[in-house]
């Protein structure tokens, strides 16, 4: 016989910690049908006849939020065999409000007084017998983070189910039926106050002295120090997870180091597989190496960043500092229709959009989560920098470059804010979210819960993003390497190596580019090549630059390179300085070096054909902004889908991004035409 148990409790009561301890790795995260709230299920590790369900953390069962509706519906309609109501002992009074509502439903319940050890350390006690007698249900003292009292909890649950213990029908419950909302809340709290008075033995000394948390808050949310401390915390968060230059001493942050390792290992593996495929047909090599391995590699490279960022975020969240972030920044972000916590994903977006979008999970309101997810993709992430560098260097003089780059950043931020305001008005009809938010006690996060939390995110990302990225990468690989002649034997007959593949210039992708490109004519850039750049940028934004190198290959002919590096007259030392080993010019090496120079924007006369397709400063600027603001890479779309849950919302979000990119680019182009640049 299998029994269904549900865990219920307030946010911050330690419910997730208990769930993790009870289920270990035997858990499954899905979501509730029709809504975007996580549904966590698992099996009690030591007692496998008990299924466990983690209900969303709520303060009440009144149906005013999605979380509350879910919790209420589950308890009332699904009728679990027993509800474990987890109560934060040091915060008994407010926690019992939910308890009372659970008991009112009449469902078999066990009350778990969590953090009872913390209470005892303060010299305070709760008389659990009194609560048992008063409510007619089993009450046990536990400490989830220290793994105390779990056996007692099991015995209490078993006894409750075996003996069919149900809560006492208090006279209060009958009375509530004839009262209005305010009277109901008053009556419930009156009952609670009287119970707390009888069972909670306070330590007068502790009650009168300042709590540890408010001492910490005297510094962390201090009028003067609050914001600077926040800035330092954010700096560390960014640098450790995504930074290339931690503490300005030239070492990268943990995330980047780990990402480097993963990439190296993947490269070795890819090369190994490639060496086994040397005799295979070129298309098979391409499919396995560029399509499959390239696609998986694109996901793998993000994993360490996601892991490190999530570990740091869990620490901030579990310690209680995250609520203070919202407290300190609410004033600013409310103006944009967001919450103070939106700052974190937006900041992370400057490093990498994938973990940044996943960080929106820390936002409490669904509206804030959705809007932040969509606008985080606008941030100029690390992979967009080569696009900016390349085009700024081609189109603007070196002394303008810094200002233009700054302007690009500023526009991206302003667009993010504007889009947030518009989405608030149009999509959410200006609904004002309320901000009643608990400032929980500061607590040390436990390593196990931090690790478990982060690994769970990684697993979800790998599963969901992995499939879409892989599929999209293979599709684009196919489009850029094949054309009709691949399938009628013409390519095979004409290609030197008798491959069925085609050059990018003749590929399906080029045809697609030709069909789509008229859409972009109003933005000032023409021809199929820039369009293909935009499309390949969806695999990874830095691909825009690589694609340009490919489709404008004639601009980087051997002759051009030979002139650029001054082959005929350069001295050996000059060639060594340019990057040629032993000072000997080699056209292949020259190409490699030049690609690097291109990405950094080192050649100001580069790419003459590019200048034909993207003729003016304003059209180039429009092209940069379109690439920055349009759909992010598939990996980021994968994490958007993870947060928005439905494809309808994800595609809606992508639609908003595309439309925004087009409008902004068009405005830039029109302003450019008006002022003649």
């Amino acid at each position: 016989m299998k029994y269904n148990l549900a865990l219920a409790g307030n946010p911050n009561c330690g419910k997730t910690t208990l769930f993790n301890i009870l289920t270990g790795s035997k858990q499954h995260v899905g979501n509730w049908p029709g809504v975007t709230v996580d549904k966590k299920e698992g099996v009690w590790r030591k007692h496998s006849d008990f299924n466990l369900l983690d209900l969303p953390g709520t303060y009440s069962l009144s149906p005013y939020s999605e979380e509350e509706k879910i919790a209420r519906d589950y308890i009332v309609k699904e009728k679990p065999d027993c509800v474990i109501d987890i109560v934060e002992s040091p915060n008994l009074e407010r926690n019992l409000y939910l308890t009372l509502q659970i008991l009112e439903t009449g469902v078999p319940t066990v009350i778990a007084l969590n953090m009872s050890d913390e209470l005892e350390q303060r010299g305070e006690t709760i008389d659990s017998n009194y609560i048992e007698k008063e409510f007619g249900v089993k009450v046990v003292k536990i400490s989830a983070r220290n793994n105390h009292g779990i056996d007692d909890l099991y015995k209490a649950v078993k006894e409750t189910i075996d003996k069919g213990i149900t809560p006492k029908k208090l006279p209060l419950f009958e009375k509530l039926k004839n009262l209005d909302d305010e009277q109901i809340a008053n009556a419930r709290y009156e009952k609670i106050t009287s119970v707390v008075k009888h069972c909670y033995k306070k330590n007068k000394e502790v009650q009168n002295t300042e709590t540890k948390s408010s001492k910490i808050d005297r510094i962390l949310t201090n009028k003067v120090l609050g914001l600077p401390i926040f800035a330092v915390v954010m700096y560390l968060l960014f640098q450790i997870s995504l930074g290339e230059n931690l503490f300005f001493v030239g070492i990268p942050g943990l995330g980047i180091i780990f990402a480097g390792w993963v990439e190296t290992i993947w490269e070795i593996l890819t090369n190994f597989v490639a060496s086994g495929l040397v005799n295979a047909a070129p298309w098979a090599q391409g499919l396995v190496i560029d399509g499959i391995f390239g696609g998986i590699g694109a996901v793998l490279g993000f994993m360490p960043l996601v892991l490190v960022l999530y570990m740091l975020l869990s620490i901030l969240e579990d310690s209680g500092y995250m609520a203070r972030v919202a407290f300190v920044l609410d004033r600013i972000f409310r103006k944009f229709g967001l919450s103070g916590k939106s700052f974190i994903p937006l900041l992370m977006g400057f490093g990498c959009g994938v973990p940044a979008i996943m960080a929106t999970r820390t936002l409490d309101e669904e509206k804030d989560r959705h809007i932040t997810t969509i606008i985080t993709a606008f941030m100029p992430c690390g992979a967009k920098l080569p696009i900016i560098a390349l085009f700024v260097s081609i189109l603007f003089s070196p002394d303008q470059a810094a200002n233009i780059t700054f302007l690009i950043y500023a526009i991206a931020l302003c667009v993010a804010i504007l889009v947030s305001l518009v989405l608030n008005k149009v999509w959410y009809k200006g609904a004002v979210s309320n901000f009643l938010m608990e400032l929980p006690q500061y607590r040390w996060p436990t390593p196990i819960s931090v690790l478990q939390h982060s690994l769970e995110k990684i697993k979800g990302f790998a599963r969901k993003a992995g499939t879409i990225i892989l599929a999209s990468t293979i599709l684009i690989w196919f489009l850029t390497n094949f054309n009709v002649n691949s399938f009628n034997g013409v390519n095979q007959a004409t290609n030197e190596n008798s491959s069925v593949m085609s050059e990018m210039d003749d590929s399906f992708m080029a045809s697609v580019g030709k069909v789509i490109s008229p859409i972009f004519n109003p933005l000032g850039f023409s021809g199929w090549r820039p369009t293909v750049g935009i499309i390949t940028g969806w695999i990874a934004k830095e691909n825009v630059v690589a694609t340009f190198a490919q489709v404008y290959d004639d601009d980087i002919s051997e002759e051009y390179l030979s002139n650029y590096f001054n082959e005929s007259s350069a001295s050996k030392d000059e060639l060594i300085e340019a990057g040629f080993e032993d000072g000997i010019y080699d056209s292949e090496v020259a190409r490699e070096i030049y690609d690097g120079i291109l990405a950094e924007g080192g050649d100001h006369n580069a790419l003459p054909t590019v200048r034909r397709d993207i003729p003016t400063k304003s059209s180039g600027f429009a092209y940069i902004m379109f690439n920055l603001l349009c759909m992010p890479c598939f990996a980021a779309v994968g994490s958007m889908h993870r947060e928005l849950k439905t494809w309808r919302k994800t595609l809606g979000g992508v639609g908003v991004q595309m439309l925004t990119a087009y409008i902004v680019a068009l405005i830039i182009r029109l302003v450019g035409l008006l002022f003649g640049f």
Partner: protein
Amino acid sequence: MTLCDLKPGEKGKVVSFGTEGVLRHRILDMGITTGIEIQLVKVAPLGDPLEIRLRGYNLSLRKSEASVIEIKQ
């Protein structure tokens, strides 16, 4: 006077609140009921929101939300 008029450290008792809908329910669910004593702990560095203490825990709310809560000292 409303909750907004308190200075950090001061306390007041809730008399009534003039709001409807979801906010009203949130306020009630979080334990802000008539007769309860609330202490204003501090104001956020940028002047809003507020941090209050009631029923043994700390709660943050915006001035716009605090201004609907009538109190007496």
